[in-house]
Every structure is written in C-alpha cells, then in structure tokens.
C-alpha cells in the first residue's frame, strides 16, 4: 500500500518535473530568432510575457503541489501508522486463525476416522439390508403365489357357487315343469273322461239319429209318392174341368159354325164385286193423279198467261210510251225496221264522217307542217330584212361619215391650198397628213371588221331563233300527240300502279304480322329463360354429388328406416306380450317369469284371474250339463221301463209315444198339447188301427192313461201270443 502511494506521488512528481522542464525548452528557439524586425521583437516580448506568466503560473502550481505533497506526506504517514496497526491486528488474527486451523485439522482427522468406521458400518448394514430385501422378495413372491392360489380358489368357488345356483334353478324349473305337467296330465285325464262320456252319449244319439233318419227317409219317400199322385190327380181334375167346359161350348160352336158358313157364302159373292170395285178405284186414282198434274200445269200455265198478258200489255203500251202509232206487232216490226234503217244510215254517215275527220286531220297536220315551214321562211325573210335594214343603216352611217370625211378633207385641202405659201410647215403638214390618212385607213378597216363581225353575229342570232321556233313547233306537236296518246296509256300505267301498290300493302301487312310474331316469340323465349329452361344442345346442368338436398333426403330415408325397424320390434314385443300373457296363465302358480314379460306382469294378472274365473265357470257349466244329461237319460229310461212308453218331443207341443211292445218301429202315438193345456191324440197310422180303444177310452172315458194302458196290454197280449 505504501508502495502504491509512493508510486502515485512519484508519478505526480515526475509529471511535475516534466512540466517544469517543458517551458525551458521553448525559450531557446525564441532566443535564437533575433534579427527579423519589430514584429519579431514584439513577438519576442509577447512570448517573454507569456513565458513569464507561465512561469508565474507554474511557480504557483509548484507551490500548490508542494503543499499538496506535504499534505499527502502527512496523510501518507497517518495511513502508514494505521496500516501498521492494521497489520499488527491482522498478524494477531492470522495467528489465531492458524491455531484454529490446526485444531480443525485435528478434528477433521478424527472425523475422518469416524467416517471410515461409519462407512464400514454402512456397508455392513447395506449388505444386511440387501439380504433382508432378498428375503422379503422371496416372502413376497410366496405371498403372491398364495394370493394367486387364493384368487383362483375364490374364482373356482364363485364359479362353483354359480353352478350350484344354476343347478338349483334348473332343479326348481324342473320341479315347476313337473308340477305343471302333472296338473296338465290331470286336466287332460279329466278332459279324457269327459270326452269319453260325450262319446258314449254321442254314439247313442247317433244311433237314434240314424234310426230317425231311416224312418225319415222312408217317410220322405212316401210323401213324395203321395205328392206325385196328388199332382196327377190335380192334372186329371183340371183336364176333366176343361173337358167339361169344352163340352159345354160345343153347342155354341155349332151355332157359330153355321153363322160362319153363311158369312163365307156371302163373302164369296161379294169377292167379285170387290175386284170390280178395286179396278174402278184404280182407274179413279190414276185419273186423280192426272187431274192433279193438270191442275199444277194449269197453275203454271195461268202464271205464264199472266206474264204474257203483261208482256203484251207492255208491248202494247210501248207504242203509247214511245209515242209512235203502234197497235199491233206489225207496226212494231215496221218501226223496228225503220229504226234499223235509220241506224244503218246513221252508221254510214258516221263512217263517212270518220273518214272525213281523218282526212281533215291529215290535212291539218300537213298544213301545220307547211305552216311551220312557212313561218320558218317568214322568220328567215324577216331576218333577212332586218339584216338588210341594218346594212342599210350602216351604209347610211358610212356614207355620212364618208361625206363628213370628205368635207373635212376638203376643208383641210382648202386650208392647205390657202397656206401653200408657207412652205416651212409643208413637210410637217405632209407628214401629219399622211399620219392622219393612215389613222383614217386604220379606223376604216377597223370599222369594216366590226361591221363584218356584227353581221355574222346577227346572222347567228337569226339562225338560232329559227331553230328555236322549229323546236317549239315540234314540242307543241309532240305535246298534242302525247295528250292524245296519254289517255290511252295512262290507264295502263294506272293499272300497273294499282297492282304495285297492292303488292306493297300486302308486303307491309305481312311484315307487321311477322314482327308481331317475332315479338311474341322473343317474349316466350325470355320467359322460358327466366323460368330456367335451357338448350340441351349447347348447355348442360351440373350439381355437386354431395349436395345438401340429397344429404337431407338420405337422412330422411335413414330415419324412416330406423322408425320402421322400431315399429317392427315393437310389434313383435306386443305379440310376445300377448303370448306371454297366455303362458303366464298356465304357469301362474309357480310364480316364475321370463324377463321379456316382466314389465307387463301387473296388468296380465287381472287378465289371468278373469281367465281363470271364466274357465272355472265354463267347467262348471259343462259339468252341470253332463249331470243334467245323465239325470235326464236316467229318468227317461226309468219312464220307459216303468210305463212302457218312450216319450219323444218331435216338435213344439207334440209328443210321440212309442210302446215297448210295438210291432213295427214306426208304430207311434202322437199327442199334441193344446192351448188350454189338455192333451189331444193326433191321427197316425197306428192310431187308426186302435180306433175302438180310442173311442172307448178317450171319447167315452176321457182318460188318456187308461187308453195307454189298454194299448200296452193289447200289444203285450199280441206279443206274447205271437
């Protein structure tokens, strides 16, 4: 630390020394440069001043630095003292630290020894631990094996229990089945007994039925025979009646026959008259027809007559109407002839007139041509005259001019002649004269030329005028021709115009119609286009396969199918329920149910009860019936045996009694119960044979039992003897 401070101080001193040495150096170059002038001297002075200032400044700084150095030395010393103290303290601390370090080292060694021991112990223990773990693992494995064995044993136990349960259930089912079957067997046996009894009764009934049927059939045959005989009797009766009636009619017939014969004779006579009359009638009819025809003709003829009369009247009136002296057709013919003659004469006149007209027209045209020519000629003459007049005038003018010239020339000559004395001017005068003469000649020639041109022009104009007039004449003639022919040709052109106009109108009408059709078709096309129609030749309609509509339809179909399946399953359930109800009724006592019907148990119980009740009641009824039948049968047999009569009810209130000792099967007595309650004997074959007994017992004694007993006795006696 002190070194560092020293170094700083030394560096500052060094810097200061360098700084001091610096200003000494620049002085030398300033001293060397002396001989330059005033500026240099001034410069030198300035520099010297600057140097002095710098020196002063440096001295100040030096003093400052000395002070600082001293302060710094003081501080340096203080710092050194402090540092020594600090060093001392630190040395002490260092020694303490060393002692501590040694102690710590000793501890460390001890600890290390311990550590080694502990490690050894650790290793031993780890080994023991491992051994124990192995033991544990083996024990665990054994435990697991035992557990597994136990589990398997448990499962086997459970399975065995289940089997046990199932077997028990099966046994129970079997017991149930057995019991139900026993019941069924009993029922069936009972039914069998019933059926056997029924069979016996039915067999008996059958026998009786057969007997009855045979008797019935015999009776039926007899009845038929009797009916046939009856019919024959009736027919015979009817025949007899008719024969009787016919016999009664015979007398009437004979009378009629007589009358008819007379009529016949009469009619034959009148036949001839008839034929005659017929011929007359035919003749009259034909006459009638002819008359009718003549009538019609008459009518027509009268009409014609009227018409002809009218015509005649008209013809006769003609004479009055026309004013001629006509009373007969001869007059009319005469008149007609006269008229015709007149006509002929007129036609001749007409023809002559026409020919004259044509000739006149020809003359006229010729005259016109001559006229034109003449007019042309006159025009030419006029022109000639005019030209000649103009010539004359010109000539007159020329004459005048010439006379004037002459006069002038004369005057000049005279003047010249008077002035002949002066000859100075003669050459000049001559010259002038010549010049004037030349000028005059020139003017004359010019004049003549102009006159010639004028005449030419006048001639041309005259010719043109002639031409114009001829053309005008021709035009007039042509116009006249056109006017005559235009009338004939205008009709033709008019017809053509008419046809052409008609065509135009038709075409226009068609055009309008076609335009309307076009508009209508365009409207239709537009409408179809709006509705979505398209031309299959040019366009095609596409859509995405998996589009929402098809997807929705598929979903709907699937829903429908699932619903249908549900419906079918539900129907099956219902059916099974109904069947299950019937099954339940049979198995009700055991109380076992199948899971399908478990839901519907409660309602079917009532049904079962009701069914049970119904069946029991039916059984009871049947049994009662059997019992009654038995009793009735017994009673009847007893009656038969004791009284000797078998009483059968054939129809309502009719009782048929058959005796034990009856000789034939159909020997029976019929008794009818009347409205008052008394029994009456009906007639049978057998009863006819017992007429005496009937009289005695029924009519006299009015006792049916006596009658019956008498009958039995009688039959018995017959039986025993026979």
């Amino acid at each position: 630390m002190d070194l560092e401070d020293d170094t700083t101080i030394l560096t500052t001193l060094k810097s200061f020394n360098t700084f001091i040495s610096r200003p000494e150096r620049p002085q030398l170059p300033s001293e060397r440069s002396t001989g330059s002038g005033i500026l240099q001297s001034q410069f030198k002075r300035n520099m010297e001043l600057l140097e002095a200032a710098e020196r002063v400044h440096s001295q100040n700084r030096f003093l400052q630095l000395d002070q600082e150095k001293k302060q710094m030395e003081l501080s340096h010393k203080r710092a050194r003292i402090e540092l020594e103290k600090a060093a001392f303290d630190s040395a002490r601390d260092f020694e303490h630290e060393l002692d501590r370090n040694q102690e710590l080292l000793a501890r460390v060694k001890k600890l290390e020894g311990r550590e080694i021991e502990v490690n050894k112990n650790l290793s031993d223990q780890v080994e023991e631990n491992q051994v124990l773990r192995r033991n544990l693992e083996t024990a665990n494995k054994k435990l697991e094996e035992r557990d597994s064995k136990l589990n398997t044993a448990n499962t086997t136990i459970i399975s065995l229990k289940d089997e046990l349960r199932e077997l028990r259930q099966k046994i129970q089912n079997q017991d149930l089945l057995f019991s139900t079957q026993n019941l069924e067997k009993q029922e069936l046996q009972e039914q069998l007994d019933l059926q056997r009894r029924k069979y016996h009764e039915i067999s008996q009934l059958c026998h009786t039925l057969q007997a009855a049927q045979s008797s019935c059939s015999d009776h039926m045959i007899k009845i038929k025979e009797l009916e046939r005989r009856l019919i024959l009797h009736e027919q015979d009766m009817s025949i007899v009646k008719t024969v009787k009636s016919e016999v009664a009619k015979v007398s009437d017939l004979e009378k009629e026959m007589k009358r008819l014969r007379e009529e016949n004779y009469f009619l034959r006579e009148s036949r001839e008259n008839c034929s005659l009359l017929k011929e007359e009638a035919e003749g009259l009819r034909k006459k009638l027809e002819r008359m009718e025809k003549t009538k019609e003709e008459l009518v027509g003829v009268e009409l014609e007559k009227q018409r002809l009369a009218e015509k005649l009247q008209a013809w006769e009136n003609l004479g009055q109407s026309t004013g001629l002296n006509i009373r007969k057709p001869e007059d009319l013919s005469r008149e007609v002839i006269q008229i015709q003659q007149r006509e002929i004469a007129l036609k001749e006149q007409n023809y002559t007139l026409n020919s004259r007209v044509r000739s006149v027209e020809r003359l006229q045209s010729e005259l016109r041509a001559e006229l034109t020519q003449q007019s042309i000629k006159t025009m030419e003459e006029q022109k000639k005259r005019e030209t000649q007049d103009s010539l004359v005038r010109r000539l007159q003018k020329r004459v005048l001019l010439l006379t004037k010239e002459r006069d002038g020339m004369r005057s000049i000559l005279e003047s010249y002649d008077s002035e002949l004395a002066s000859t100075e001017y003669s050459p000049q005068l001559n010259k002038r004269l010549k010049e004037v003469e030349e000028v005059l000649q020139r003017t004359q020639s010019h004049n003549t030329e102009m006159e010639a041109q004028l005449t030419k022009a006048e001639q041309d104009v005259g010719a043109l005028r002639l031409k114009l007039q001829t053309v005008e004449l021709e035009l007039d003639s042509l116009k006249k021709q056109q006017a005559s022919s235009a009338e004939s040709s205008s009709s033709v052109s008019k017809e053509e115009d008419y046809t052409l106009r008609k065509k135009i109108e038709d075409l226009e009408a068609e055009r309008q119609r076609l335009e309307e059709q076009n508009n209508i078709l365009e409207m239709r096309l537009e409408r179809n286009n709006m509705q979505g129609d398209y031309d299959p030749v040019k366009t095609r309609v596409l859509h995405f396969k998996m589009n929402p509509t098809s997807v929705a339809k598929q979903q709907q179909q699937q829903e429908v199918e699932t619903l249908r399946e549900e419906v079918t399953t539900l129907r099956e359930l219902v059916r099974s329920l109904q069947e299950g109800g019937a099954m339940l009724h049979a198995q009700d006592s055991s109380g076992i149910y199948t899971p399908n019907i478990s839901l519907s148990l409660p309602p079917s119980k009532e049904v079962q009860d009701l069914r049970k009740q119904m069946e029991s009641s039916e059984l009871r009824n049947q049994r009662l019936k059997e019992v009654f039948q038995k009793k009735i049968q017994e009673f009847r047999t007893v009656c038969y045996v004791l009284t000797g009569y078998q009483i059968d009810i054939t129809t309502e209130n009719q009782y048929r009694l058959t005796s034990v000792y009856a000789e034939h099967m159909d020997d029976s007595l019929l008794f009818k119960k009347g409205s008052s309650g008394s029994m009456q004997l009906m007639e049978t074959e057998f009863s006819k044979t017992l007429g005496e007994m009937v009289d005695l017992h029924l009519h006299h004694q009015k006792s049916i039992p006596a009658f019956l007993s008498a009958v039995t006795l009688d039959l018995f006696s017959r039986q025993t003897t026979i």
Partner: protein
Amino acid sequence: MTSTLKGITLKGSAELVAEFFSFGINSILYQRGIYPPETFSRVTHYDMSLQVTTEPKLNNYLTNVVSQLKEWLFECSVQKLVLVITCLETNEVLERWQFDIECDKSAKESSAPREKSIKTIQDEIRSVIRQITATVTFLPLLETQCSFDLLVYTDKDLVVPEKWEESGPQIIDQSEEVRLRSFTTSIHKVSSMVAYKRTDSA
C-alpha cells in the same frame, strides 16, 4: 389482389364474381331461413354487414362449389348459377334464384386489363345484395323444412369434374318470376332473378 391493380383482368373478374356468389348464397340462406340463424355470424364486406354460415359441412360444400365455379369463370364456360330451394316432405321445388352470367370472351385473348374501378363494381354488388334482402318481403313464407341445391349451367363440351354429376333443371311449375338488378365487371356480366311457386291464395 385486384384492389391494388388499376384495371380488371379476367382472373380478377372471376375472383370478384366468385366472391359475390359466396356472399350472396350465404345471405340468401340466412334470409330464407334454410339454416337456423344462430349458425350464422356477421362479417363486413362490400362496406356492409353480411351473414356468413359457421357450420363446417356447409362451409366445406360452399367452398368446393365456389372454387370450381372460379375455374369455370376463368375459362368462360359457365352460363348460369341457380340456387334451388326444395321442400323435403313433398320434394317440390319452391324457389329458384337464377344468376345469368355473360362472359366477354375477347378478354381471354387480349389479356389487357380493362378500365373499371373496383369501387363501382363493389357499389353495384352492394346494391344487388341489398335488393336480394329486400325481395324477402314479397316472397311467400317457407313453412316446411327445406333444403337447397346449387346447379351450374355450363357449356356442353365441358369435362365434368369428379365430384359433379348431371342433373335436371328443376323448374318450378306455375311460377312467378321477378327480375332483379345486375352488375358487370366489364368482363363478366351477372344478372339476377328469382322465381317462386305461385301460391293459390294469391
């Protein structure tokens, strides 16, 4: 996209028209109640708020159809797009939204962009969609459960793609037609109209 370019190219026009169809079909489905309104969400496009479906199956179907339609618009081989609404119980067609497309085929050859600003096209599209929304007031109510289908009328010589098949035009018998606005991108002209089954009471 076309918004940065000055003119309209064939590709840009196809994209614009396909985009219009996508939004138009969505708004028709929302307005007519084919799908429940809670399955739609609001978005902003063409400077107006529109309803777009969020159901994934329907979205998938619509994107498939619209992408195929874009290709066909670029080839100028599609003539009409029809949205058909059928009643599920009776299988009757109740409504038909028909969009006729006229393509200027000279744009295929020239390939020079045409002068029409995007803004005017979008204004026209906006007015068409507004009119579609307004037509709901006079269309008869769809009381039964309905589903929809998209039909495309294309040229006969077009190759039918894999997932598409031919179908009938599914025309309504006894229909009333109403013509709506049209818009044009100067390459494609789309005119719209709606046909509905005449109700006997009216």
